[in-house]
């Protein structure tokens, strides 16, 4: 069902992700979280906090960051880096929007397996 254009995978419509919220894309490499910030910009990260593996898709989105629901680590949506005094990083998946559709980098998803 996933439309492939080049190296990009179509995972759904941009409108399907709630503003200041997230949706989950399931993949054989583990869940991916697709976030939409208040300004409408979209981001994708592996759905796993670098701290204890909490599902970032379930956190509160603020600015270009998300707060993990398990222990309140704040993770940047831009690069997956933990903010403040915490240290850690979750892989970022390149994302683009074309004609209202969200496309994720197939190559980056494949790399999640490693």
């Amino acid at each position, binding site marked *: 069902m996933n439309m492939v254009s080049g190296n990009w995978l179509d995972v*759904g419509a941009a409108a399907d992700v709630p503003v200041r919220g997230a949706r989950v*894309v399931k993949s054989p490499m583990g869940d991916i979280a697709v976030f939409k910030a208040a300004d409408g910009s979209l981001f994708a990260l592996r759905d796993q906090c670098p701290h204890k593996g909490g599902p970032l898709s379930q956190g509160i989105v603020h600015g270009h960051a998300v707060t993990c629901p398990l222990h309140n680590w704040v993770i940047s949506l831009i690069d997956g880096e933990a903010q403040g005094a915490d240290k850690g990083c979750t892989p970022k998946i390149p994302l683009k929007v074309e004609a209202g559709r969200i496309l994720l980098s197939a190559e980056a998803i*494949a790399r999640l397996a490693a």
Partner: protein
Amino acid sequence: MSQQKLVVIGNGMAPGRALEKLFETSPGLYDVTIFNAEPRVNYDRILLSPVLSGEKAYEDIIIHGDDWYSAHGVTLHKGAKVTTIDRAAKTVTSETGITAPYDKLIIATGSQPFIIPVPGANLAGVLTYRDLDDVHAMLLAAKSGGRAVVIGGGLLGLEAAAGLKEQGMDVTVLHLMPHLMERQLDSAAGYLLQRAVEQRGIQVMCKANTHAIEGETRVTGVRLDDGTVLPADLVVMAVGIRPNAGLAKEAGLGVNRGIVVTPDMRTSDPDIFALGECAEASGQVFGLVAPLYEMAHVVASQLAGKTDAAFSPSATATKLKVTGMDLYSAGDFADGPDREEIVLRDPVRGQYRRLVLKDNRVIGAVIYGDTADGPWFFDLIKRGTDISGMRSTLIFGQGYQGGSALDPMAAVAALPDEAEICGCNGVCKGKITATIAEKGLTTLDAVRAHTKASASCGSCTGLVENVIKLSLGESYNPAAVTPMCGCTDLGHDDVRRLIVAKKLKSIPALMQELGWKTSCGCAKCRPALNYYLICDWPGEYEDDSQSRFINERVHANIQKNGTYSVVPRMWGGITSARELRAIADVVDKFNIPTVKVTGGQRIDMLGVKKEDLPAVWADLNKAGMISGAAYAKGLRTVKTCVGTDWCRFGTQDSTGLGVKIEKFMWGSWTPAKLKLAVSGCPRNCAEATCKDIGVICVDSGYEIHFAGAAGLDIHGTQVLGHAKTEEETIEIIAALTQLYREQGRYLERIYKWAKRVGAPSIKAAVIDDLARRRALHDRFVESQTYAQVDPWEERVNGKDAHEFAAMAELRLPQAAE
């Protein structure tokens, strides 16, 4: 590589610091389990004296709250005293029967107060001064007034004496030596101190040797060697401490006075460390926090694999923490043939300074009176500075070196970067200024969080503030209200006031009007604002689900592995065969791994997959069950006992009243969770006296209690008032809840709110002022008309469907060609 298991015996300040350091440098390296003989989290023992004198509360002195342990995946066994270490099997076992395996073990059993072996030492009313339980016992004893005798005129004894005096007791201090605090003070400073203590109305007797403690079952007096008998209702022994090394000794480890450790803090078993007051290093045991924290750093480094870290005891400084008595001593100030001294004495002004010099270097300092120069002298001691160039003005302090004025700011400015500001935590000026610049810190709290400066005993707070002022200039305003979060300068109370005054009815409007500094807030302020708006504009404000914590957004409790738990309401704890059958069917149908009875008299199904939640709820709804809101900052449970229905002691229908209250109050949102209980008689089987709100039924009606706690803190409830009928009871409870809803700060439990605003103001509003009670009750009822919608049913019917379904399921990318 799998995590190694680290077990810690003891949960005091030293192991707390070691773990903090370990998590900071090597997160995830160890799976940590702590056994704590005390039934609580890690708190700051140095600050017990302000708790005794009433200047601080227990909540103010917690170092690591429960969330710290969960955030670092630490298993904390509270109230579990370890009784055996099996070094062959590498396990420890507690009195409560818990056994835990270890790869590395830290023994941090601390010390116990020394009890003078005199007749009567075990009588009721004879206490020691060591932990929070001792403080509580002293506060209880002080309530009835009377006479207290404190044995021991050292730091702890004097702090205990001042605290008991502050609590209204008639206090005498007995001290064996010729002057007070002889380990820290010379005789002249000891005399000045004694005079200051006596001026507070505390009697001091030096060279007083206790012969016996008198009394039949309770203490009635203290008899001295010379035959004098001092009447006493309370005796506090504060004569010193002894390392707790018994457990280590039984395990066959090398023990002398304390548990013997090498400079790498290892005991005679290389996998076992000893840390804190129980450890003996270089033939010394330690009781002050600074060297204990140094030990903690060494243990953390060793655990992280830095094998060259070593503990070497250095000079320490002491400050007496009694408000209004300023005393500072550091280093070594004994007389000696190769030592010289410089003394400044001004008895009328109560000023005394003595510096002990050796080879043109300061090795000891005692200051009484104006102690502001203490840290500067301590710095000279630690650095071994040659003072020949400033010898003639040295005693006057830093302000007189180089002719600068006695301005405290100038004094701080003149300090070198290496000068120690916080002795407890070993933080120097340079570390504070660098951290302020690097992290953009602007508040004392932030500086404490990042550097730990002034985060222990707090006596250097003024200095730390001066360093912050120096770094930030006039923009630093220490008196300011604590802001809600980094997104605003406004505190919770100001925000609540402005929401009403400016009629702010949405989060964007509020952020615009109140000048929020971030585009859309953060995870701290958004849930708070969402609650405030719901509370203040019922029916008008539209709930913002994206500003709710996940549990309230999906109406279930997230678990550590990302699954959820589901708890249906059981009104007053009553259930039926039909409900139980439906629960059993759901468990089978959805393969739910764990079913557990909760503390709130209901049933928890744990391990439900998120996508199954709506289907689980649909089945529960069919059997008539709705959400139990076990995830909500809102009404949770109303526990009941069986009351007059069944119980031969019951005085009222407690079950029926509990069900009525729960049916009336379910669905309401409150600043923090709200748990209730109704007991049918004063035997209190529903445990109503540790709830946020509790009812005790009596023959004449209903006693209404509030502000209890049985979690992080344990507090018995206070009595709010008495009601004659069920209707009156419900009206008072609704009014109380509404007042809490309107005044409480987000996440502030009812007992903290009551403490902040004062119980009398609450009683006045909901008991004494009938008109105000009715108005509050009516506002609660109004708000309930919008709140009582079962969130499960809404979602079964399709609301927020996107929450429960994946947006897409990808196949293997390779196969997608």
